[in-house]
């Protein structure tokens, strides 16, 4: 094939600038790595592999701050997904991934392929995906029909893919704020289970071993997806969008079953396996070769292709979905092929491992690429960003004091805010029970899944606290982890580890880099204190629209372990007359709260420091109480504070709560980190308070179906049926509005 430009023309005309490769990087590659000018195909490969999406060149220095080790960590970051021991030779495998740009451009397919991609990451490790979670951030939908359409399509995309695969959706979050109007966020998380002995890694080695390609044919889908995802998303790009990736969950289901059959029954045939994600074939193969310390030679004419006339560059960078690469031991190619044939999947040997550390590509009878393997992967120039504390943080606004005249009216308004309102419109489109292990469906603090054949269960959640991160990246980062841990603990599970998706604006802006750096510091610190190492994650930068960045939005996906699922704690009160306790504190700082947004239309102010050690101690005590059967129900306070949490506990039950809360009524709407409402049977009260000394008795569970809270200055007394109606109808009503 003819190269579109000669190396000299490339040097002169610098087309790589459009592909987000800088002149400095180009010069470094030519002078220091290759000692020659790269050809057209090679420059294309470099621009994709050196994009932030593949190389993490900007974020790597910051990511090193994360604690990644722990007693239970079997595999930390760097592989398809993190692997954490859950005893008995079993492990939980999980990772989250962002698909923000594709979802913003084409919500249905973007969301669907986001789910598809993260599933492959997990099953390429040898684990069976058992749950999907999704974190979605939208702009305001009230006055924006396009945003409503995007919400509907995103949800349909997440649902259709997971439903078709038969993997239950166990939770997520849906958040609304104007900062996502031009750039929505879709982070998908997958949790898998495996026998530890089947652990697979994405590496390729052993001279003479084969490189096999399996799954869907390669087409021109999503070419430059990786660089596209790493570039500011402005109007200009709207013309580039024909290369949409289309998901085929049916093919993925076959691929999943075939890969697991191969790994579990014939592990000895293979060296490593990896899915083709961002930057497709080049990224998967180059990373596998780097990982295995090997060289690789591929013949692109052997790659199954859906369209004729694709260039080497297109074949290597295609982001067609549902494809995997396997390094197969010499002599077992036919055996492997037999398995994939049986699932009616394409499978072809496309190359082999060679004895020099080079990455060589043949196409149309020519060598189109001949590079040192590591030049594409580990030799990337790291680019720690310049940092500058954002101006808004130098002088945070004065402390805001809410005036709450009618607490009932405020509560009703809060419950109608889409961020707080019932998400059944969304979760009802997701199958959450398929494969019959779901103990707690979406709608509680965490989703809980039984580990079939054992008495164990795993709990999981996905949380972001972007408003808090915006007001103070470091404390906000800590809060994100505390919020996730609180959800896990509320369900009765011991937090094990986290995965993350770091969603930020343009890192070349020093203020945004500072946000990234400081929020990661906060996350790292909280993970250290709460003993939840980071085992996998993903970075999504350049979340901007016409120069307007989103709030810094690190998403935390946490998984916890319940050793005996009889001790799974429900969110709803169970018995009339049970005592109600507050574990943790309320606060008079409303910076970043839903109340502040409701009453002032914006958020501002400084955050209070968190006492992480104390929060950790409290959670441990609460957990102990849960595991010894002292707790009847538990819910953590998050957006909307105690009043909202209490309402959520009562919805769908016939119960009421009668509480006495010292302090001004406004505090019922404050959002302290890591506080809980807990109900306890009266006869267990003494043991409970002994176990959790700081628990404060607030009142008890009634059968009036009213929420009655007396404070120092006001009484809140609301009929739960009225509140439930408001809460339930808010999102369906907004979605139906014609405005």
């Amino acid at each position: 094939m003819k190269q579109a430009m000669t190396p000299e023309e490339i040097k002169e005309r610098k087309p790589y600038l459009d592909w987000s490769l800088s002149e400095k990087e180009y010069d470094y590659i030519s002078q220091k790595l290759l000692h020659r000018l790269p050809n057209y195909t090679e420059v294309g490969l470099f621009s994709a592999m050196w994009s932030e999406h593949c190389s993490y060149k900007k974020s790597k220095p910051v990511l090193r701050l994360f604690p990644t080790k722990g007693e239970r960590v079997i595999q930390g970051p760097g592989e398809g997904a993190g692997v954490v021991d859950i005893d008995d030779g079993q492990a939980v495998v999980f990772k989250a991934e962002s698909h923000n740009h594709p979802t913003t451009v084409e919500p249905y397919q973007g969301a669907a392929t986001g789910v598809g991609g993260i599933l492959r990451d997990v099953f390429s490790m040898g684990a069976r995906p058992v749950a999907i979670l999704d974190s979605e951030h939208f702009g305001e939908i009230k006055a924006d029909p396009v945003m409503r359409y995007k919400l509907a399509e995103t949800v349909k995309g997440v649902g259709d893919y997971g439903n078709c695969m038969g993997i239950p959706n166990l939770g997520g979050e849906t958040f609304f704020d104007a900062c996502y109007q031009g750039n929505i966020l879709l982070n998908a998380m997958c949790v898998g289970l495996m026998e530890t002995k089947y652990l697979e890694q994405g590496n390729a080695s052993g001279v003479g071993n084969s490189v096999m390609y399996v799954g869907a044919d390669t087409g021109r889908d999503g070419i430059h997806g990786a660089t596209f995802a790493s570039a500011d998303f402005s109007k200009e790009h709207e013309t580039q969008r024909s290369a949409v990736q289309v998901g085929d969950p049916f093919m993925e289901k076959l691929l999943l079953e075939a890969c697991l059959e191969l790994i579990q029954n014939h592990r000895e045939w293979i060296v490593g396996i990896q899915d083709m994600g961002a930057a497709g074939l080049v990224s998967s193969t180059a990373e596998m070769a780097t990982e295995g310390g090997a060289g690789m030679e591929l013949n692109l004419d052997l790659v199954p292709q859906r369209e004729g006339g694709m260039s080497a560059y297109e074949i290597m960078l295609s982001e067609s979905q549902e494809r995997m690469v396997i390094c197969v031991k010499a002599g077992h190619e036919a055996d492997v092929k037999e398995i994939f044939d049986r699932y009616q999947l394409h499978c072809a040997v496309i190359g082999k491992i060679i004895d020099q550390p080079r990455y060589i590509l043949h196409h149309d009878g020519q060598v189109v690429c001949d590079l040192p393997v590591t030049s594409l992967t580990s030799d990337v120039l790291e680019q720690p960003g310049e940092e500058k504390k954002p101006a808004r943080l130098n002088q945070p606004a004065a402390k805001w004091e809410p005036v709450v005249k009618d607490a009932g009216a405020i509560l009703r308004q809060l419950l109608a805010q889409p961020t707080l309102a019932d998400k059944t419109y969304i979760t009802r489109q997701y199958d959450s029970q398929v494969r019959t292990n779901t103990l707690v469906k979406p709608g509680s603090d965490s989703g809980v899944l039984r580990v079939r054949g054992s008495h164990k269960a795993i709990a999981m959640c996905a949380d972001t606290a972007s408003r808090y991160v915006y007001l103070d990246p470091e404390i906000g980062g800590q809060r994100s982890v505390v919020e996730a841990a609180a959800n896990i603990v509320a369900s009765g599970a011991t937090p094990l580890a986290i995965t993350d998706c770091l969603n930020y604006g343009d890192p070349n802006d020093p203020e945004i880099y500072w946000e990234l750096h400081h929020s990661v510091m906060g996350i790292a610190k909280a993970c250290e204190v709460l003993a939840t190492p980071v085992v996998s994650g993903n970075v999504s930068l350049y979340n901007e629209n016409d120069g307007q960045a989103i709030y810094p939005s690190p998403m935390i996906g946490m998984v916890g372990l319940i050793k005996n699922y009889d001790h799974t704690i429900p969110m709803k009160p169970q018995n009339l007359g049970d005592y109600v306790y507050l574990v943790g504190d309320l606060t008079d700082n409303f910076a970043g709260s839903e109340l502040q947004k409701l009453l002032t239309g914006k958020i501002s102010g400084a955050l209070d420091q968190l006492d992480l050690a104390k929060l950790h101690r409290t959670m441990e005590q609460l957990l102990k109480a849960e595991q010894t059967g002292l707790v009847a129900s538990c819910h953590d306070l998050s957006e909307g504070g105690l009043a909202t949490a209490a309402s959520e506990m009562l919805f769908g039950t016939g119960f009421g709560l009668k509480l006495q809360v010292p302090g001004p009524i406004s505090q019922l709407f404050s959002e302290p980190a890591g506080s809980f409402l807990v109900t306890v049977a009266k006869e267990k009260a003494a043991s409970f308070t002994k176990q959790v000394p700081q628990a404060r008795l607030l009142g008890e569970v009634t059968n009036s179906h009213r929420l009655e809270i007396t404070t120092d200055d006001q009484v809140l007394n609301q009929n739960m049926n009225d509140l439930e109606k408001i809460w339930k109808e808010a999102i369906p009503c907004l979605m139906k509005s014609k405005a």
Partner: protein
Amino acid sequence: MSRVRIYVTYKPSVFDPQGATILDTIQTALGHQEVSQVTVGKFFDLTLPAANLDASVKEIAEKLLVNVNMETYRYEVLEEAE
């Protein structure tokens, strides 16, 4: 009043898993090896006044019926009447 038919199909380079599966079924399950290509599309029949037809159809198609990221369309007038 006119009756208009708007045909919507995937752009040629967009992968159509449904079309691929149907073709495979026709060839293998039904044994019609002689069928060599299947593409799937949708159509919408609209009744609307003849005045300003072109502008109306264009707007309705591009704003609602067609996903311009991955689909293309064309339309024809089926019949015209008063």
